């Protein structure tokens, strides 16, 4: 293990924040092994699907898309945790953001990586996924730029690039500091990643500027990415998909689930790394309020979406609407309303009940609810198409369930590895905050 030259780490905060990087517990190893096992099982399931054919999944005619696409939308939604929240907070210069940003930005990058896999996993011939990228051939065959799926490819690759840079920028001062205080392979890695950071004023100014700039860009990209994801559905003419509010509805839903994911991540970090001093009630309270706000916004959109369908009473839309509200999908629908609205509204809306614990519970509910929301957008519409003779029921198979489960463990795994390699709280930002606070007092 890399040693730290003791005298330099005078600061107690640093010591505590660096500890998880340098000390690996048995419990950590066990959790990683467990998560890796599930992930490997998911990979096996995917391999089986590649070899045997996509038919090992439960998708069928007419439900050509199902939980692979649900997972896609879900994880792209989660990715909004980060960048969007941290960008908004950074641009509005909300001081309480500082211990939160890195945790959020990491979620973004990993969720995007996972979400971005699903369009490939769900392909009938996944090995030809590169045909979706524009590259020159003598056949002069280009992808179809009219297809929303191609917009997806463009938007998600842009977003992934942007958010990776956005995660990386504020990491530079931290890795530079780590490079100074570690030895061995870690030192080499940190040094390479610190891109020659010396900590001069000019560098600090450039970093400040770059981060502000990226925050602005990433905000625009994030909003457009989820709008584009929504357009996968709303650009089609399927009943209940062809809706003008899907863009903002999906963005709101994405931020909603993103905040929930962030809250859960923070609660876990706080507990496992004993960072009670850094992630305080104050932070949770603020994020909870944000979650409550998004819950109300989500509810508003949901009502607007469903009310218009019901009021319009168009038979083809009503077939889907009815199936969701009082048909075979009703249990999921009402579970979604409870998870996404009732629970957060009660737990977070009543000040007395709003604690770190309830915020975490509400967040878990919201994640479940938002997953169900995407399921309820995709599956009923496809099950109840325009011609009743083509209606059909969908049920997932073990392959789909395994791959879906593996995405959650992959997320956790990536996050754990990240937290092992980099400080999950931006130390330098935090230090400046401490300095600011002390100078004011």
């Amino acid at each position, binding site marked *: 293990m890399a040693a730290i030259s003791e005298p330099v780490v005078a600061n107690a905060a640093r010591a505590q924040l660096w500890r998880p990087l340098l000390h690996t517990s048995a419990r950590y190893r066990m959790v990683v092994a467990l998560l890796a096992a599930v992930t490997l099982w998911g990979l096996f399931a995917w391999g089986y699907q590649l070899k045997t054919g996509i038919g090992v999944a439960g998708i069928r005619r007419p439900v050509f898309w199902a939980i692979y696409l649900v997972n896609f939308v879900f994880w792209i939604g989660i990715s909004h945790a980060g960048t969007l929240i941290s960008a908004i907070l950074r641009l509005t210069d909300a001081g309480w953001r500082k211990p939160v940003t890195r945790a959020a930005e990491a979620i973004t990058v990993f969720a995007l990586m996972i979400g971005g896999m699903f369009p490939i996993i769900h392909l009938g011939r996944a090995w030809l996924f590169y045909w979706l990228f524009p590259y020159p051939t003598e056949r002069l065959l280009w992808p179809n730029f009219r297809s929303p799926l191609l917009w997806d490819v463009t938007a998600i690759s842009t977003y992934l690039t942007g958010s990776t840079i956005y995660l990386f920028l504020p990491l530079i001062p931290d890795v530079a500091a780590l490079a100074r205080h570690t030895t061995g392979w870690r030192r080499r890695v940190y040094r390479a990643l610190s891109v020659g950071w010396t900590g001069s004023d000019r560098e600090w100014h450039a970093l400040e500027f770059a981060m502000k700039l990226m925050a602005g860009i990433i905000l625009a990209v994030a909003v457009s990415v989820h709008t584009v994801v929504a357009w996968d559905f709303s650009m089609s003419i399927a009943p209940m998909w062809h809706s003008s509010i899907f863009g903002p509805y999906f963005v709101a839903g994405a931020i909603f689930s993103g905040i929930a994911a962030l809250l859960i991540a923070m609660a876990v970090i706080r507990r496992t790394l004993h960072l009670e001093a850094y992630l305080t009630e104050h932070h949770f309270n603020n994020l909870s309020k944000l979650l409550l706000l998004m819950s109300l916004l989500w509810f508003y959109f949901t009502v607007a979406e469903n009310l218009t369908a*019901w009021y319009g*009473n168009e*038979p083809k839309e009503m*077939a889907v609407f*009815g*199936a969701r509200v009082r048909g075979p999908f009703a249990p999921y629908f009402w579970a979604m309303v409870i998870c996404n609205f009732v629970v957060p509204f009660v737990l977070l809306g009543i000040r007395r009940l709003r604690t770190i614990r309830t915020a975490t519970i509400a967040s878990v509910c919201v994640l479940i609810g938002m997953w169900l929301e995407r399921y309820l957008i995709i599956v009923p519409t496809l099950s109840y198409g325009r011609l*009743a*003779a*083509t*209606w059909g029921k969908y049920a997932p198979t073990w392959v789909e369930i395994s791959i879906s489960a593996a995405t959650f463990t992959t997320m956790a795994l990536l996050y754990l590895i990240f937290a092992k390699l980099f400080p999950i709280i931006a130390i330098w930002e935090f230090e400046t905050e401490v300095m600011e606070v002390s100078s004011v007092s």
Partner: protein
Amino acid sequence: MDRRNFFKILSTVSAGAAATSCGTKRDALAPLLVPEHEIVPGVEQWHVAVCRECAAGCGVIARVMEGERTVERNGQKFRERVAAIKKLEGNPLDPVSGGRLCARGQAAVQGLYHPDRVRGPLKRTGARGEAKFAPVAWDEAIAGVVDKLKGRASDVLFLTAPEVSARTASIARFVQAIGAPAARTCSLQQPAGLPRYDLARARYVLGVGADFLGTWASPVYYMRQYGEFRQGRPGVRGHFVQADSRMSLTASNADEWVPIQPGSERAFLAAIGAVLRGENPKQEWLDACGVTEKRVRRIAEELKQSEAPLVIAADTEAALYVNGLLGNFNKPGGVFGVYASLGSAPQKGDVRGARVLLVDAGENPAYLAPGSLANVETIISFSPFLDDTAAQADWILPDHHALESDMAIEQPVSPKRSVAVGTAFVKPLYDTRAVEQTLADVAKKMSVAYAPVTPEEFAKPLLAEGESWEDVVRRGGVQADAQAGELKVPQALQVQPVERSPLVLQTYLSTQYYDGRAANLPWMQELPDPASSAMWDLPVEIDPKTASSLQIASGDRVGVESERGAIEVFAYVHPAAIPGVVSMAIGEGHAHFTRYASGRGANPLTVADAEKPMRVKISRIAGARGELAQFSPQDREQGPWGGR
């Protein structure tokens, strides 16, 4: 060299030993060499043939092109290219098909290339019903049959189709030669000798119990006429009323469906006839069929008013009676008599009394009369498939598939006196023998003088002066202008009282499987049932009222029980079923009938009669597993939760 060429080379050089591991089977190259004289790649040839999927004997043409198959010779497996039938179309020169073909006819080619054909003579090795057989040489099989037939001529019962053909003529000659009783049939095919209905030129048609667009007589012939009847004449659209005990395919096309109780077709026609004669229909008739007098009077009135009315009924005598009252014989849009036949078709027979049973291809007594073979000592089957009957046989001497055979069949439903002729044009795939040839071999071994009736000999009476047999073979048949026979019109109808019970089961021939003979064809198995949209199975159709009182929903497993036996099937709640009348199509429920039909579904003839509805009890089986495959489970345009 790119990889695809490489694979071709590799698979050729090493006989596929290495290439198969890469999953490139479809990439592999078949032998490049094709004898030029046999078939040219990419060039289609057309040959005439006769469809044998029902009794109508539609003339068809077959498209022949190259095909690839794996063969094993001297212990070595290799791919070879052969001439193969790709598709059947109706023969445009044929008076019955007129260039058209029904679904079952289209699927006939799958019978030819069926993976589970009997590939040579078989001898039973296990106990009867175990379906254990050992392949034997033809000589041994012939000797075995001779052994069973010798000195037992009077015990012999030969089952064949109820048709007049070179095949049935040959069989008739054979049974006569060995001194056995005349051949019989157990098939549910409509027998020859039906009058011809000129549907195309009629204006108002009343159909009674005849599913002439689905399975009755020749669906292709009547569908062709039906198209003309509806939209073939400018400004004239024929009106169609169907009285039927279920919403058959035919009834579903009618402008008006008159639901009548099963078995009451004659009572209904008697009532119509009474009105036409200016009498009052008897109340017992009306009660029997369950139609109001007002409605009967209206329909009779409409028939009378029409310039070209026509009554088509499965009950020929009753149909002729009413058409007679309408003065409807031998005129456009009316009924025409039957042409003189080239022979006589085998009559219905009961196999229960037989000791030695010879079963022609297509006949399946074990399926159509379950349990009837229990006391038969010897069964000799000529079936090209291991069907329910062949599975119980002592010897199987497989016939060629119809598309590999020479044949001549008198067409029972035809505007002319006609015989359809087919000649073999693809080599038999397996070590099979035409039944005629087998019989000749048997006769020879028995030292009995016998020669089969050749197609040419059979059709000769129809050949016009100067018409050569080659012409007939090239055209796929021969037609002769002839005077149709007189129609025997009954002066009055004898109406048997119809028993009514709270819940009866009626069976009917299915559009996909006919009388079950097409159940081995995967295309027919996956053809959705016209009523229930079921695939790979046939459900029992129950009306919504009865179903709800028994708490049965579509897709439930139900037990159907009668005094005869019991079956377990899927239920389909049929929105157009008559309350208290449960229907089930014949077709599934084969104990043995190749990988596609064996053990699938249930045979309704185990509980009910093919001709007469039977009283049954139905109950839901709770906790049963399995799912009814339906192509369109939703049978209404609106879902149960649609609308506010």
